[in-house]
Structure formats: C-alpha cells, structure tokens
C-alpha cells in the first residue's frame, strides 16, 4: 500500500520512538476507525467523536516520547481517548447553557445499522427495537460503567486490557461490568431497578 502523507506531521525518526510509532500516518490509518468508534459510542455524537479523534492522534503525536511500549499502541491510544472523553464531559457540564444544542446534534441511531441477517422484516424490526433499548440503557449508565461496558462488548477487550486502559483494578472492572450488565439487561427487558 502506497504511503500517503495526510496528517502533515513530520515523519518520526526511528530512534526517537518505538517501531510502531515510526510512521504516524500508518498509525492513523490503522487505529482511526477504532478510536472513532469508541468515542462515538461513548458520546453518541459523530461530530464530537470526529473532533476528539483528531485531538487524540495529535496528543499521541505530541506525547510520543512517553510511549514506552509497555502496553500495546491500541491500549495507549484508547487511554488518551478515554481522557478526552472525560475532559469533554466535564467541560460540557461546565458549559451547561450549551447542553440543549449539544444534545440536539447528530445523535447516533444504532438501530439503523444492524446487519440485515434476519429472515423476516418483523424479525429485523424486533432486533432493531431490542438494540435501541439496549443502547438507551447504555447511554444512561454512569461514565465508568459505560466505559467498561463499551470496551468489553463493543471493542471486545479482555478484562486485564480494560483494567490497563482505564487504570482500574481488575476486580473494579469486574464490579462495574457486573452492575452495567445487570442494569442494561433489566432495563432492556422492561424491569425497573427495584424489581431485581
């Protein structure tokens, strides 16, 4: 595949960073979708996710000296994205007068993106409805629960990797995941939290 300079960042000398970061455009090409997906799922906003994806790669480029290769590049980038999500949510809380406009932005309707593998239109509608219900439940989880849930069930990360990315203990990750699963299952099945 031909090398395409798209980020306008100077190419890194191999000595100043590890091998994986040597070609930053290649890093962007490989991990952009994954980071965008995580940000979009975390914020339910395509425009903000796109902006934060750019911020994430710029931060990674600027902080490339701090990457020692102790974790995978994917984990490192996800950790930067996670910090950006936290900062964004915090600043959105501070700018409460913009909340109406923010929520009115491009909200992702995941139900429309279900692969068409069902045998009948009724089944497709049913699946879409279930996925929408789950998605609504996920959006109402606490920030940490949602992060752990998305990393586990959307990004398919192992518990140890989630712990490394979020900086939590594995037992804390398990606890958040257990609670998140219980809440999502109960809400999706129409049970209130008091009925458990």
């Amino acid at each position: 595949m031909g090398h395409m300079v798209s980020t306008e960042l100077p190419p890194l000398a191999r000595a100043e960073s590890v091998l994986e970061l040597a070609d930053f455009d290649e890093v962007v090409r490989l991990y952009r979708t994954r980071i965008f997906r995580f940000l979009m799922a975390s914020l339910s906003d395509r425009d903000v996710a796109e902006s934060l994806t750019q911020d994430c790669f710029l931060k990674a480029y600027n902080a490339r000296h701090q990457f020692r290769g102790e974790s995978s590049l994917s984990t490192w980038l996800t950790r930067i994205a996670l910090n950006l999500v936290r900062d964004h949510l915090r600043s959105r809380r501070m700018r409460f007068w913009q909340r109406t406009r923010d929520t009115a932005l491009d909200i992702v309707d995941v139900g429309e993106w279900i692969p068409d593998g069902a045998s009948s239109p009724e089944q497709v509608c049913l699946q879409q409805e279930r996925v929408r219900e789950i998605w609504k439940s996920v959006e109402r989880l606490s920030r940490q629960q949602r992060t752990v849930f998305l990393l586990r069930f959307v990004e398919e990360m192992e518990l140890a990797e989630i712990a490394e990315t979020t900086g939590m203990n594995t037992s804390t990750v398990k606890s958040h995941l257990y609670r998140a699963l219980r809440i999502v299952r109960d809400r999706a099945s129409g049970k209130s939290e008091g009925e458990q």
Partner: protein
Amino acid sequence: MLEPAGQFAADLRNLRSAVHRAADRQTAQPVPFGWLKAAKRRQRTSQHRVVLAWSLATACAALFCIGSLPLLRHAAPPAAEQKVIDVQPVVIDDTALLEQIDNTVSESVPSSLAPLDSLDNWSSTTSTNTESSLNAPEKKNVAQ
C-alpha cells in the same frame, strides 16, 4: 455472570455490529490532507484561552491589591494608636510606689540647694509664728 447468554448475548452482538458498521461507514473515506489542522487550531485556541484566563486573573488580582492599598493605609493609624494604648498601662504595686516616694523624700538635699533648705526651715518656723499671731486677734474677738 459477566458473559451474557441467550437472547441478551445475541442483542449485544447486534449492538456491536451496528456500532462497528456505523463507525466504518463514517471513516470509510481516506484521511483527508491536513486532517489534524483543525485539532492543532483547537489546541492553539485552548492554549491561548488558558493564557488569557491566567492573565485576566492576574490583572484582576493586581487591580484588587492596588485598589485596597488606600484602604489599608487608612486603616493603619488606628491600629498603631491601639498599640500605644495597650502599652501605656503599667501596673506598679502600691507598696513599691510608696517606698519609691519615701526614698525620694528622705534623700539629703544637695549642697547647691542648701540655702533653699534653710529657707524652707525658716518658712516653716515663721509660718508657725504667724499662725499664732494671726490667731491672737481672733481669740480677742471671740473673748469680746
């Protein structure tokens, strides 16, 4: 318990597929040239905003200090007076004060003041004489 099963697991798989497809669709286009320019601009703007906020805060603090200087200057004299007032009352024991007075009174008169001393003696004797002479007519009047 952390691995869902049955219909819920299928729903989660559908959710994952939907999110993946939505993200893939969004990032299907190749990265445009100068993709990170906007991020750089945002970073610069936020840095400028931080610098501006700190400058503003510093300016406000300086203005506040300058504004409160006259107040501090006016407020200072009463504090000094209060200090003086606080220092003035010195407690002296009564007996010590009496002893001090006795010592001062019983001191011998210096030689240069000796004539005054004799004068003082003279005045004390004359005063007794004049008192007796003054009292005599009074006694007469009383007798009359």
